[in-house]
Protein backbone atom coordinates (compact mmCIF):
# COMPACT_ATOMS: atom_id res chain seq x y z
CA UNK A 1 0.00 0.00 0.00
CA UNK A 2 1.28 3.42 -0.90
CA UNK A 3 1.62 5.32 2.39
CA UNK A 4 0.45 8.48 0.66
CA UNK A 5 -2.81 6.88 -0.39
CA UNK A 6 -4.13 5.90 3.01
CA UNK A 7 -7.80 6.77 3.52
CA UNK A 8 -8.12 5.88 7.19
CA UNK A 9 -5.45 5.68 9.87
CA UNK A 10 -6.49 3.37 12.72
CA UNK A 11 -4.66 3.89 15.98
CA UNK A 12 -5.43 1.18 18.51
CA UNK A 13 -3.34 -1.11 20.65
CA UNK A 14 -6.09 -3.73 20.90
CA UNK A 15 -5.68 -6.38 18.26
CA UNK A 16 -9.31 -7.52 18.51
CA UNK A 17 -10.70 -4.01 18.13
CA UNK A 18 -8.46 -3.34 15.13
CA UNK A 19 -9.64 -6.53 13.47
CA UNK A 20 -13.27 -5.66 14.12
CA UNK A 21 -12.89 -2.16 12.74
CA UNK A 22 -11.03 -3.35 9.64
CA UNK A 23 -13.63 -6.02 9.06
CA UNK A 24 -16.50 -3.54 9.37
CA UNK A 25 -14.87 -1.04 7.03
CA UNK A 26 -14.08 -3.64 4.44
CA UNK A 27 -17.57 -5.08 4.57
CA UNK A 28 -19.15 -1.72 3.84
CA UNK A 29 -16.63 -1.05 1.05
CA UNK A 30 -16.13 2.35 2.59
CA UNK A 31 -12.41 2.55 2.33
CA UNK A 32 -9.94 0.67 0.23
CA UNK A 33 -6.88 1.75 2.11
CA UNK A 34 -6.87 1.47 5.84
CA UNK A 35 -3.60 1.51 7.74
CA UNK A 36 -3.30 0.48 11.37
CA UNK A 37 -0.68 1.45 13.97
CA UNK A 38 -0.47 0.10 17.51
CA UNK A 39 0.90 2.96 19.57
CA UNK A 40 1.01 6.75 19.81
CA UNK A 41 4.60 7.08 18.68
CA UNK A 42 3.98 5.17 15.47
CA UNK A 43 0.87 7.28 14.92
CA UNK A 44 2.87 10.51 15.26
CA UNK A 45 5.61 9.21 12.97
CA UNK A 46 2.99 8.40 10.35
CA UNK A 47 1.12 11.69 10.61
CA UNK A 48 4.26 13.83 10.73
CA UNK A 49 5.95 11.93 7.89
CA UNK A 50 9.03 10.90 9.81
CA UNK A 51 10.95 7.85 10.91
CA UNK A 52 9.72 4.74 9.12
CA UNK A 53 7.19 6.94 7.28
CA UNK A 54 9.53 9.60 5.98
CA UNK A 55 8.50 8.96 2.38
CA UNK A 56 5.04 10.25 3.28
CA UNK A 57 4.18 13.84 2.42
CA UNK A 58 1.99 16.38 4.20
CA UNK A 59 -0.11 17.07 1.15
CA UNK A 60 -1.52 13.53 1.17
CA UNK A 61 -3.12 13.26 4.61
CA UNK A 62 -5.47 10.45 5.52
CA UNK A 63 -9.14 11.34 5.20
CA UNK A 64 -9.82 10.21 8.75
CA UNK A 65 -7.94 9.18 11.87
CA UNK A 66 -9.62 6.85 14.35
CA UNK A 67 -7.73 7.32 17.59
CA UNK A 68 -7.90 5.25 20.71
CA UNK A 69 -7.45 7.18 23.95
CA UNK A 70 -5.25 4.86 25.94
CA UNK A 71 -2.14 4.03 23.96
CA UNK A 72 1.34 2.81 24.79
CA UNK A 73 4.42 4.97 24.29
CA UNK A 74 2.53 8.16 23.53
CA UNK A 75 -0.95 8.65 24.95
CA UNK A 76 -3.98 9.38 22.72
CA UNK A 77 -4.49 12.84 24.20
CA UNK A 78 -0.87 13.71 23.44
CA UNK A 79 -1.23 12.51 19.84
CA UNK A 80 -4.38 14.60 19.53
CA UNK A 81 -2.76 17.68 21.01
CA UNK A 82 0.22 17.46 18.65
CA UNK A 83 -1.83 16.82 15.55
CA UNK A 84 -4.32 19.57 16.29
CA UNK A 85 -1.58 21.90 17.40
CA UNK A 86 0.34 21.82 14.11
CA UNK A 87 -1.00 23.83 11.17
CA UNK A 88 0.22 21.19 8.74
CA UNK A 89 -1.99 18.51 10.27
CA UNK A 90 -4.61 20.44 12.21
CA UNK A 91 -7.38 19.98 9.69
CA UNK A 92 -7.28 16.19 9.45
CA UNK A 93 -10.53 14.87 10.97
CA UNK A 94 -9.82 12.88 14.13
CA UNK A 95 -12.49 10.79 15.78
CA UNK A 96 -11.67 9.40 19.18
CA UNK A 97 -12.83 5.79 19.34
CA UNK A 98 -12.28 4.57 22.86
CA UNK A 99 -13.64 2.26 25.52
CA UNK A 100 -13.34 4.99 28.13
CA UNK A 101 -16.62 6.22 29.57
CA UNK A 102 -15.08 9.00 31.60
CA UNK A 103 -16.66 12.39 31.19
CA UNK A 104 -13.32 14.11 31.72
CA UNK A 105 -11.89 12.20 28.75
CA UNK A 106 -14.73 13.40 26.57
CA UNK A 107 -14.27 16.98 27.71
CA UNK A 108 -10.53 16.80 27.24
CA UNK A 109 -10.88 15.23 23.82
CA UNK A 110 -13.25 17.85 22.49
CA UNK A 111 -11.27 20.65 24.13
CA UNK A 112 -8.09 19.50 22.45
CA UNK A 113 -9.92 19.71 19.14
CA UNK A 114 -11.12 16.20 18.39
CA UNK A 115 -13.71 16.35 15.64
CA UNK A 116 -15.79 13.77 17.44
CA UNK A 117 -15.71 11.21 20.22
CA UNK A 118 -17.27 7.76 20.31
CA UNK A 119 -17.40 5.25 23.12
CA UNK A 120 -16.79 1.82 21.64
CA UNK A 121 -19.94 -0.25 22.06
CA UNK A 122 -19.30 -3.45 23.94
CA UNK A 123 -21.62 -5.38 21.68
CA UNK A 124 -19.95 -6.79 18.57
CA UNK A 125 -22.88 -6.00 16.25
CA UNK A 126 -23.24 -2.48 17.57
CA UNK A 127 -19.52 -1.88 17.18
CA UNK A 128 -19.77 -2.88 13.56
CA UNK A 129 -22.80 -0.62 13.07
CA UNK A 130 -20.94 2.24 14.69
CA UNK A 131 -17.92 1.80 12.43
CA UNK A 132 -20.22 1.63 9.43
CA UNK A 133 -22.01 4.84 10.45
CA UNK A 134 -18.86 6.77 11.22
CA UNK A 135 -17.19 5.56 8.06
CA UNK A 136 -20.14 6.65 5.96
CA UNK A 137 -20.33 10.02 7.68
CA UNK A 138 -16.65 10.96 7.68
CA UNK A 139 -15.76 9.56 4.27
CA UNK A 140 -18.88 10.33 2.26
CA UNK A 141 -20.95 13.03 3.92
CA UNK A 142 -18.33 15.19 5.61
CA UNK A 143 -16.46 17.56 3.30
CA UNK A 144 -12.76 17.40 4.06
CA UNK A 145 -10.40 20.34 3.81
CA UNK A 146 -9.90 21.12 0.12
CA UNK A 147 -6.64 20.27 -1.69
CA UNK A 148 -6.15 17.14 0.28
CA UNK A 149 -5.30 14.41 -2.15
CA UNK A 150 -8.51 12.95 -3.47
CA UNK A 151 -7.85 9.27 -3.79
CA UNK A 152 -10.19 7.71 -6.31
CA UNK A 153 -11.28 4.27 -5.22
Amino acid sequence: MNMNEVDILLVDDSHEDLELALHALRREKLANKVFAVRDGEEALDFIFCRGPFSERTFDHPPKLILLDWKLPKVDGSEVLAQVKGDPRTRTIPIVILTSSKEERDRIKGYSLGANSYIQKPVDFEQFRETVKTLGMYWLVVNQPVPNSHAVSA
Partner: protein
Amino acid sequence: MNQDSAVEVLLVDDNPADLELTSEFLSRSRCTSRIHTASNGEEALAFLQRAGEFVHRALPSLIVLDLNLPRKPGHAVLAAIKQDPSMRQVPVVIFSTSQAPADIQRSYELGANSYVRKPGNLGDFTFAVTSIGEFWVCCANFPNGDTKKTAPTATLTTKENA
Protein backbone atom coordinates in the same frame (compact mmCIF):
# COMPACT_ATOMS: atom_id res chain seq x y z
CA MET B 1 -39.34 7.81 25.89
CA ASN B 2 -36.53 9.10 27.97
CA GLN B 3 -36.40 12.88 27.90
CA ASP B 4 -33.19 12.95 29.85
CA SER B 5 -31.33 11.12 27.18
CA ALA B 6 -32.46 13.37 24.33
CA VAL B 7 -29.59 15.01 22.47
CA GLU B 8 -30.00 18.78 22.59
CA VAL B 9 -29.36 20.27 19.17
CA LEU B 10 -29.15 23.94 18.25
CA LEU B 11 -29.95 24.66 14.60
CA VAL B 12 -28.87 28.03 13.28
CA ASP B 13 -30.26 29.08 9.89
CA ASP B 14 -31.82 32.33 8.70
CA ASN B 15 -34.07 30.68 6.14
CA PRO B 16 -37.20 29.55 8.01
CA ALA B 17 -38.06 27.03 5.30
CA ASP B 18 -34.60 25.43 5.57
CA LEU B 19 -34.69 25.61 9.35
CA GLU B 20 -38.01 23.84 9.59
CA LEU B 21 -37.09 21.24 6.97
CA THR B 22 -33.80 20.39 8.67
CA SER B 23 -35.56 20.28 11.99
CA GLU B 24 -38.27 18.00 10.63
CA PHE B 25 -35.88 15.47 9.12
CA LEU B 26 -33.55 15.51 12.10
CA SER B 27 -36.43 14.81 14.38
CA ARG B 28 -37.25 11.74 12.34
CA SER B 29 -34.03 10.12 13.47
CA ARG B 30 -34.45 6.84 15.31
CA CYS B 31 -32.69 8.46 18.23
CA THR B 32 -34.21 11.11 20.43
CA SER B 33 -33.24 14.70 20.04
CA ARG B 34 -34.54 17.99 21.26
CA ILE B 35 -34.16 20.66 18.61
CA HIS B 36 -33.74 24.35 19.30
CA THR B 37 -33.58 26.88 16.52
CA ALA B 38 -32.07 30.31 16.04
CA SER B 39 -32.36 32.42 12.92
CA ASN B 40 -29.30 34.59 13.33
CA GLY B 41 -25.89 34.70 15.01
CA GLU B 42 -26.80 36.93 17.94
CA GLU B 43 -29.75 34.78 18.88
CA ALA B 44 -27.55 31.69 18.68
CA LEU B 45 -24.85 33.18 20.89
CA ALA B 46 -27.40 34.47 23.40
CA PHE B 47 -28.84 30.97 23.59
CA LEU B 48 -25.40 29.45 24.07
CA GLN B 49 -24.40 31.97 26.71
CA ARG B 50 -27.64 31.36 28.54
CA ALA B 51 -28.22 35.09 28.41
CA GLY B 52 -31.47 36.90 28.93
CA GLU B 53 -34.48 34.77 28.11
CA PHE B 54 -32.27 31.74 27.62
CA VAL B 55 -30.99 31.70 31.17
CA HIS B 56 -32.64 28.40 31.99
CA ARG B 57 -31.51 26.58 28.91
CA ALA B 58 -28.97 23.83 28.97
CA LEU B 59 -25.93 24.04 26.77
CA PRO B 60 -26.71 21.99 23.66
CA SER B 61 -24.70 18.92 22.78
CA LEU B 62 -24.50 19.77 19.09
CA ILE B 63 -24.67 22.90 16.98
CA VAL B 64 -25.63 22.81 13.30
CA LEU B 65 -24.64 26.11 11.76
CA ASP B 66 -25.37 27.70 8.40
CA LEU B 67 -22.77 30.10 7.04
CA ASN B 68 -25.06 32.49 5.26
CA LEU B 69 -26.50 34.46 8.18
CA PRO B 70 -27.63 38.08 8.37
CA ARG B 71 -25.66 40.70 10.29
CA LYS B 72 -23.17 38.33 11.89
CA PRO B 73 -21.94 35.80 9.31
CA GLY B 74 -21.60 32.12 10.17
CA HIS B 75 -17.81 32.20 10.35
CA ALA B 76 -17.94 34.97 12.96
CA VAL B 77 -20.42 32.96 15.02
CA LEU B 78 -18.19 29.90 14.72
CA ALA B 79 -15.16 31.89 15.83
CA ALA B 80 -17.09 33.28 18.81
CA ILE B 81 -18.17 29.80 19.87
CA LYS B 82 -14.72 28.24 19.54
CA GLN B 83 -12.99 31.06 21.37
CA ASP B 84 -15.32 31.02 24.37
CA PRO B 85 -14.07 28.56 27.00
CA SER B 86 -17.58 27.83 28.20
CA MET B 87 -18.77 26.57 24.81
CA ARG B 88 -15.75 25.75 22.68
CA GLN B 89 -15.94 22.03 23.28
CA VAL B 90 -19.46 21.78 21.83
CA PRO B 91 -19.13 20.18 18.37
CA VAL B 92 -20.19 22.43 15.52
CA VAL B 93 -21.30 21.02 12.18
CA ILE B 94 -21.32 23.57 9.38
CA PHE B 95 -24.31 22.90 7.15
CA SER B 96 -24.09 25.19 4.14
CA THR B 97 -24.93 25.35 0.44
CA SER B 98 -21.43 26.69 -0.18
CA GLN B 99 -18.89 24.37 -1.72
CA ALA B 100 -16.29 27.10 -2.04
CA PRO B 101 -12.93 25.71 -0.92
CA ALA B 102 -12.22 28.98 0.90
CA ASP B 103 -15.36 28.59 3.00
CA ILE B 104 -14.56 24.99 3.88
CA GLN B 105 -10.93 25.78 4.68
CA ARG B 106 -11.89 28.75 6.85
CA SER B 107 -14.46 26.70 8.74
CA TYR B 108 -11.94 24.05 9.71
CA GLU B 109 -9.36 26.67 10.62
CA LEU B 110 -11.84 28.32 12.96
CA GLY B 111 -12.43 25.00 14.67
CA ALA B 112 -15.48 23.50 12.97
CA ASN B 113 -15.79 19.81 13.80
CA SER B 114 -17.41 18.94 10.50
CA TYR B 115 -18.56 20.48 7.23
CA VAL B 116 -21.58 19.15 5.36
CA ARG B 117 -22.80 20.56 2.10
CA LYS B 118 -26.51 21.41 2.05
CA PRO B 119 -27.69 19.96 -1.27
CA GLY B 120 -30.32 21.58 -3.47
CA ASN B 121 -31.90 18.31 -4.46
CA LEU B 122 -34.51 16.98 -1.97
CA GLY B 123 -33.28 13.39 -2.02
CA ASP B 124 -29.69 14.42 -1.35
CA PHE B 125 -30.84 16.90 1.29
CA THR B 126 -32.75 14.31 3.27
CA PHE B 127 -29.76 11.98 2.98
CA ALA B 128 -27.45 14.64 4.34
CA VAL B 129 -29.69 15.52 7.28
CA THR B 130 -30.38 11.87 8.04
CA SER B 131 -26.65 11.17 7.99
CA ILE B 132 -26.00 14.02 10.40
CA GLY B 133 -28.63 12.53 12.65
CA GLU B 134 -27.31 8.99 12.28
CA PHE B 135 -23.80 9.94 13.26
CA TRP B 136 -24.12 12.81 15.69
CA VAL B 137 -27.40 12.04 17.39
CA CYS B 138 -27.17 8.27 17.43
CA CYS B 139 -23.48 7.48 17.50
CA ALA B 140 -21.32 10.24 18.89
CA ASN B 141 -20.77 11.07 22.53
CA PHE B 142 -20.72 14.58 23.90
CA PRO B 143 -18.65 16.39 26.49
CA ASN B 144 -21.48 17.68 28.61
CA GLY B 145 -23.48 15.01 30.33
CA ASP B 146 -23.68 11.65 28.71
CA THR B 147 -26.84 11.03 26.84
CA LYS B 148 -26.39 7.69 25.39
CA LYS B 149 -28.74 6.15 23.06
CA THR B 150 -28.56 2.83 21.24
CA ALA B 151 -32.23 2.19 22.02
CA PRO B 152 -33.45 2.17 18.43
CA THR B 153 -37.13 2.65 19.03
CA ALA B 154 -37.53 6.01 20.72
CA THR B 155 -38.55 8.45 18.05
CA LEU B 156 -40.68 10.94 19.89
CA THR B 157 -38.99 14.28 20.11
CA THR B 158 -39.89 17.64 21.39
CA LYS B 159 -39.34 20.45 18.97
CA GLU B 160 -39.01 23.86 20.47
CA ASN B 161 -38.35 27.11 18.76
CA ALA B 162 -35.77 29.19 20.54
